[in-house]
């Protein structure tokens, strides 16, 4: 798993590639929380296009990001979910709680809901 950040005005985009599992979900969570809680970035966007596999520990990292964003009135947005990542979010019954878009363009241009 690799995670890297692109910094735009008031926005950080994380590009994640590889499987997210117990071996690396703590690093993913930490990246999200640093951006939201410490750097107070108002919009964090997560590019999951390169993530072919995610398990409950990965979902938990996304949930931590979403919860932190709600506490801080920031936005936490996902895009580029693979079929299997979507299936897992569906199984978790959390799909509707996340702001999810098809691609980066839509994620960047979407108005706050």
């Amino acid at each position: 798993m690799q995670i890297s950040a692109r910094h735009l005005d008031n926005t950080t985009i994380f590009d994640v590639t590889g499987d997210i599992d117990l071996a690396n979900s703590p690093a993913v969570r930490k990246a999200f929380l640093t951006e939201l809680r410490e750097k107070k970035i108002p919009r964090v966007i997560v590019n999951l296009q390169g993530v072919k596999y995610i398990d409950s520990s990965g979902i938990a990292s996304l949930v931590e990001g979403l919860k932190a964003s709600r506490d801080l009135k920031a936005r936490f947005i996902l895009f580029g979910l693979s079929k299997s990542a979507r299936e897992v979010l569906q199984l978790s019954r959390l799909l509707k709680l996340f702001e999810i878009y098809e691609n980066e363009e839509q994620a960047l241009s979407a108005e706050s809901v």
Partner: protein
Amino acid sequence: MPRRQLLLRIQLMSNPAVLCGVRGAVSPLAGAVGFGEEDCHKITLALDEAITNVIRHAYGGKLERPIKIEFHKVNGKDAAKAGLEITLTDRGVKPNPDALKGLPPGELRSGGLGLHFMRQSMDTVVHTRVGSTNRLRMVKYIR
């Protein structure tokens, strides 16, 4: 065909770094048994969650503790429809039976999804304690 045929046995240490290797093995094995792509993903997820729970809960996150996994091809009730049985054995603490009931999904809670994923993905998920070992048996049949 025998009713229960050993396909593979895997032993690993309770180290999250090797989860990827176990996932890599189970998906093609399930495919070879006859499962389609979506079921292969579900079986992979269930096994990943099961090992994750052993590492985190049975072994409290300690590395270098032994985990044994066996994969058997089994017959379904309809003998033409095979299944895959996965058994995990560890020497960690006994789970709390109440905790093993699991939590309802759909809540913004960072945790409590593993057992739900396992039960959604497999037809059978049974935890037992045998002496000082925990055994988890999961089975899925081809539909």
